[in-house]
């Protein structure tokens, strides 16, 4: 029987992937990879602000990640400067966060826990937050699935069918901020985007429909979580990066030709 902390870690990772799998598929389909990155980087600023104001860390990261995602979405709607604006915003937010943390007197902050996650120290309270957040994201995506998908396939077709692509984009932005807030404890700010993108990208090779790709992303992500935790225990490596490394290994396997379900 594995230790309690290990079971909690596994449950946290599984909860994360339930939301990050389908959302990651949208991030890949819509080429929002960099947006996931930017949102995650900004979360460090959220950590600093939360610690300074003594609000829950998850709340602070959620709010700042959302603000960041909205700023990025607004800028990327204006075309050619979006890429540069993203770079400016993402790294400025990360740097500001790191600087802000250093100003926090009397608070001993283990910053690497927020950058790389500390899944092995997940508490029961964290689990409630993670699963609650993941369930919310999953419900949001399931509710609007066909509309989100139509807007992703072609904005004109969506508009002609009476949908508002901007609203669907906002739904994804919201979901992204929530997932970042949920995931920061597990894999950390620097690796959140990895768990969104890598399992979804690996899933492409096995799927013929969007739904199948989302389901595969969840499944492969969970395998990565369990594999990463096992490796972390066996080789005494940091848990968050080990999970991402496992996901990367799965991605490499998915590249083996002959598996493509086209």
């Amino acid at each position, binding site marked *: 029987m594995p230790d309690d902390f290990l079971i909690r870690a596994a449950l946290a990772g599984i909860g994360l992937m339930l939301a990050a799998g389908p959302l990651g598929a949208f991030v890949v*389909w819509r080429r929002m990879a960099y947006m996931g990155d930017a949102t995650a980087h900004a979360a460090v600023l959220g950590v600093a602000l939360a610690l300074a104001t003594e609000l829950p860390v998850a709340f602070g990261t959620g709010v700042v990640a959302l603000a960041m995602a909205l700023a990025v979405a607004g800028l990327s709607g204006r075309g050619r400067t979006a890429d540069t604006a993203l770079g400016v915003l993402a790294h400025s937010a990360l740097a500001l966060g790191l600087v802000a943390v250093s100003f926090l007197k009397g608070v001993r902050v283990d910053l690497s826990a927020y950058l790389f996650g500390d899944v092995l120290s997940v508490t029961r309270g964290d689990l409630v937050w993670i699963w609650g957040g993941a369930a919310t994201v999953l419900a949001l995506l399931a509710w609007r699935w066909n509309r989100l998908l139509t807007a992703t396939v072609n904005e004109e077709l969506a508009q002609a*069918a009476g*949908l508002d692509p901007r609203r669907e984009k906002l739904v994804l932005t919201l979901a992204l901020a929530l997932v970042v807030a949920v995931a920061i404890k597990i894999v950390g700010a620097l690796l959140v985007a990895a768990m969104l993108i890598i399992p979804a990208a690996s899933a492409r090779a096995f*799927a013929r*429909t969007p739904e199948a790709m989302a389901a595969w992303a969840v499944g492969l992500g969970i395998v990565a979580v369990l594999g990463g935790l096992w490796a972390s225990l066996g080789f005494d490596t940091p848990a968050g990066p080990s999970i991402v490394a496992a996901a990367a290994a799965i991605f490499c396997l998915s590249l083996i030709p002959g598996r493509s379900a*086209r």
Partner: protein
Amino acid sequence: MTLIEARGLAVRHGALSVLRDVDIAVEAGEIVTILGPNGSGKSTLVRALIGLEPAAAGAVVRRPGLRIGYVPQRLQIDPVLPLTVRRFLSLPRRVGDAEAAAALERTGVGGLGARQMSVLSGGQQQRVLLARALLGRPEILILDEPTQGLDQIGEAAFYRLLEEVRQESGAAVLMVSHDLHVVMSTSDRVICLNGHVCCEGTPKVVSAAPEYRALFGHGTGGALALYRHEHDHDHDHGEGPHHHHHHHDHAHEVEDA
């Protein structure tokens, strides 16, 4: 019965005036083609009619509850998005398997249901897009240069299909083209557009109208020579008899006029 109309419609892109004073109307069951050179605002007009472009002045009036079937110019489906034709037909409104299969069969791409959208040829994709539009039981089909990227045989076949669909379903058709002679036999009415409506009428009337000539230059000696050259060229290479005949007719008309 008027299905959709533009009244004094103007559309601007920033400071640039793309359309001004556009008055057009589509009646139930008719096939109307919007014709114009590149940059004449054809696509913008179609987009405004569907509600994708805001009107800077004037208005678009749709019959309340009008069911529009929209076929966009070209759909770029990223191969990273796995999407079968069958799944695509259920976006955003889910349709039954039998219904989906019948629509694909009708547009001549039956059996493509399991194919990935990203690997379809241009012609197959247009037919799938048309099938999807038909699933909404449209009263009007709106198509933006539906045959772009098709060869002339594919183009002719697609227009025949549109005419059949119109006959069966009674749906009106509003489409955009840049080439009069390919839509000549299919259209009931042609609207010549160049930022505003230049001329309007049956294909025969429009092809003889001075405004049309001015726009496309077919009345000038140079263009006529070009036309004859095209005609000869087609003839030399022995393309389909229908096509040859068509060119011949047209050149003949221009000479007569």
